[in-house]
């Protein structure tokens, strides 16, 4: 017959375990800081968006893929170097922000910054390097094949489209538009990517260095390094 344990004990043990679990999870939930970012234009992605597999290259011609997003926070902006207003305005603010990270007094490890060109037909790696390097020597200028760029941007649930000088949209972003001086209508927010390579938040323009810092600090406190 084996050892008989009184039913009451089994029941007490079961409820005891359940009780412990409830208390433990309550402590866990209460201790985890809540994600509450009061900067206008911020969108927290819960659950985070997993970044699809991609293979692109930085301005030095080195492969830039999912692995290169690991281990460090990444702030990213999508744009093109022929962009007269939005991109230089945002990149200027990012250069102001990264001066703060570069100070010895900065408590947070500096994230990396990448500018992803959605105009591979005009932005060569060299030009892209010169462009981003003007704002900060450590900024990455990322480009690649039209297909890889398109897959990554749409995989992030974001969007870009070309436009001719008359304002007519050109839906085909996989081939070079036939005219000169086409413009790119593009998502222009800042993307926040964790050291595990997940997109967790976006911030839409107008972009301001102090606000980006505020959002980043809150995300960093919540998701950690």
């Amino acid at each position, binding site marked *: 017959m084996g050892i008989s344990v009184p039913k009451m004990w089994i029941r007490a043990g079961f409820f005891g375990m359940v009780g412990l679990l409830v208390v433990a999870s309550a402590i866990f939930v209460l201790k985890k800081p809540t994600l509450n970012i009061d900067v206008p234009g911020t969108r927290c992605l819960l659950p985070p968006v997993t970044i699809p597999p991609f293979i692109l290259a930085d301005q030095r011609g080195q492969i830039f893929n999912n692995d290169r997003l690991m281990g460090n926070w990444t702030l990213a902006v999508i744009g093109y170097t022929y962009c*007269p207003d939005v991109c230089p305005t945002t990149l200027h603010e990012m250069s102001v922000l990264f001066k703060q990270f570069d100070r010895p007094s900065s408590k947070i490890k500096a994230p990396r910054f990448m500018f992803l060109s959605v105009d591979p037909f005009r932005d060569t790696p060299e030009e892209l390097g010169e462009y981003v390097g003007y704002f900060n020597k450590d900024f990455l200028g990322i480009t690649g094949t039209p297909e890889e760029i398109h897959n990554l941007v749409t995989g992030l649930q974001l969007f870009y489209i070309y436009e001719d000088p008359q304002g007519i949209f050109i839906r085909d972003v996989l081939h070079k538009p036939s005219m000169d001086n086409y413009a790119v209508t593009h998502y222009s927010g800042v993307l926040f990517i964790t050291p595990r390579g997940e997109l967790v938040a976006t911030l839409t323009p107008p972009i301001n260095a102090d606000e980006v810092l505020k959002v980043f600090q809150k995300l960093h406190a919540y998701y950690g390094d």
Partner: protein
Amino acid sequence: MKQPVKILFVLFLFLLTPINTKASEISVTNPWIREAPPNTQMLAAYMEIINNSKHTIQLESAASADFEMVMIHRTETHEGMSHMAKQSGLQIKSGENVILEPGGYHLMLMNPKRNLQAGDKIKLQLQFDNREAIAVTAVVRKK
């Protein structure tokens, strides 16, 4: 001041007034161009244009000897998507002003004929309807 002198002085002021009014019907303040990375093909000029005249005016076009082409543009951002909308003109009502600033209205400066650096001064001609062009000097700066 003696009475006749006073009258003469007031008359003299009246004589000056029309000249002044004509000169200040449209005024442009703080014209500037954002310094861009070397070899950038697209830049933007910003300023405030004030219409002191009694009627609505329209900025019809702009030009500069330092750029191949200048266009009036407005950046429009909806839900994070930024789009450049070409403007056929920029209307300013009597007594009102319009601000050209980053993220909004701007003069898109295409294909610079030389590299511009902070501190450079660039001449721009603003063509208004029924008026001669107004010349402004924009300063290149980082912000």
